[in-house]
């Protein structure tokens, strides 16, 4: 039991690290792209192509490049998480009402103030929705990480499959499913709250 709990924490850490890096890079890129729209299409296509590559294929190629272990999985998670985060940041900021931006500029806000006081707060629910998608996907990909020598709950499932041991499979499958469904509900709840707050304002 204790071992499972430690693995749960391990699993969460790997997934969260990958997504966190993607959040930092992805939101920045999303913002930059709204200022350089002509290259937005190109960047989105590239991230879209990365997402199309089968998970096991990408992870195993990354393993050859970066070796076995958690770091390689985190790189993979980062790559997979970029698309939803960049796209949602980009779409979210572009969906801000022109009138509000004009009002902000008219009041003498600088572009930076406009970004932090108007654009990002309004786009937040959409950005969060991208992060939610990325994180749920990441929890799933992390289970595959075991195949390239990383930790996490995939370990139990994988060993269970090899040994055809039901208990072993379930001891990984149940916690990771609870994590995924729980994270989805929690982040979905947060997102709803933000949307409601935005509507009231």
């Amino acid at each position, binding site marked *: 039991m204790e071992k499972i709990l430690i693995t749960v924490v391990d699993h969460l850490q790997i997934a969260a690290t990958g997504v966190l890096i993607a959040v930092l890079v992805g939101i920045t890129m999303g913002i930059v792209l709204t200022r350089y729209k002509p290259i937005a299409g190109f960047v989105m296509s590239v991230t879209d192509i990365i997402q199309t590559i089968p998970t096991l294929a990408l992870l195993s190629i990354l393993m050859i490049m970066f070796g076995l272990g958690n770091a390689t999985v985190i790189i993979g998670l980062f790559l997979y998480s970029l698309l939803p985060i960049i796209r949602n940041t980009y779409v979210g900021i572009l969906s801000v009402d022109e*009138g*509000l931006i004009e*009002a*902000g500029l008219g*009041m003498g*806000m600088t572009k930076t*103030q406009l970004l932090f*006081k108007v654009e990002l707060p309004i786009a937040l629910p959409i950005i969060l929705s991208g992060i939610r998608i990325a994180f749920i996907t990441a929890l799933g990909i992390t289970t595959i990480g075991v195949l390239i020598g990383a930790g996490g709950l995939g370990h139990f499932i994988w060993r269970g499959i090899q040994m055809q041991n039901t208990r072993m499979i379930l001891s990984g499958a149940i916690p990771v499913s609870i994590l995924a469904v729980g994270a989805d509900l929690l982040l979905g709840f947060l997102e709803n709250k933000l949307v409601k707050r935005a509507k009231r304002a």
Partner: protein
Amino acid sequence: MVRFENVKKAYNDVTVIEDLNLHIKEGQLVVLIGPSGCGKTTTLKMINRIIEPTSGSIYIDGEDITKVNPVMLRRKIGYVIQQIGLFPNMTIAQNVEIIPKLLGWPADKRRKRTEELLHMVDMSPEQYADRYPSELSGGQQQRIGVLRALAAEPPLVLMDEPFGALDPITRESLQDEVKRLQKKLKKTIVFVTHDMDEALKIADVIVLMKDGKIVQAASPEELLSNPANDFVAQFIGKHRLNDGLEIETVEDVMRHDPVTVTKDIGTSESVALMKRKGVNSLLVVDDEGRLEGVVTVDKIRKQGKAGRNISELIDKDIRTIPTNTNAREAFDILIEDKLDYLAVVDDKNKVKGLVTKTSIVKALAEVVWKDNGHE
């Protein structure tokens, strides 16, 4: 042609049609009109069984329509709706030919019919038959909508506010067209509208409804010269007769829909609202609708801070006049004091309207040119 006998329609406890009796004669263009919620659209849609009556009977050519399969019934009744509803995945010709195709007409007969119909509204088949609805203007689309309804030569056509979404000029030409087609093809048409000008222009018989009942059913002339009661007189008057219209108080010359806000609205939101409504100031009112002042776009731009509300930017120094002020007097104040606007308030200081130079000019134009079609 169509006869309603003691027709009633209720949704749960709410009665929308109350004991309706109506006889629509063959070859007539009958317009159902009345304020929204009067039951005119429900009445129309009961004829092709899109809506089923709660009790009573409807007969077409003496046959009880509940005895006819609704699908077969509808194929013999043309139907035109306000949203037009041309199928975007089909060409113009395919749209027009749907019902003939459902009825199993051979292809060459269908094609010939389509060409004949397009010629009837001066749209050349070579140019339009193979286009898609999205490539046509709104007016052209609704012409096709009408043709689609006429395609299988139904003796009866139902039209549910067909021109409501079109601009005034297109609307007029389509009204002429429908009237012309109806006379030429001798169709019976039941037509729903809320526009009295439209009704007076095209109707053989106008059926004026209110609260699910027929108030008066008569020819346009009869309706104008002999309104059955005050409601009818008022309904025609409001829509049609400028003869009695005089400008007396400010209520006749003001805008009835000034843009008002409460003072807890944010600065950016107010600017966005002004931009959307095309105005440069907003009247600020309290929760009861009582006037508190005015806020202008200039002031927000100069002194406003993002994320704050407008309460400290309100200009309380605003000229108001009571609703019963003489229009002439209001005009004089506006000109002499070089004001942009006057707020019109009632005895409780509630905002009722806004007098601007434009609103006065509009009111005068209506009297001079008897032009009130674009409210």
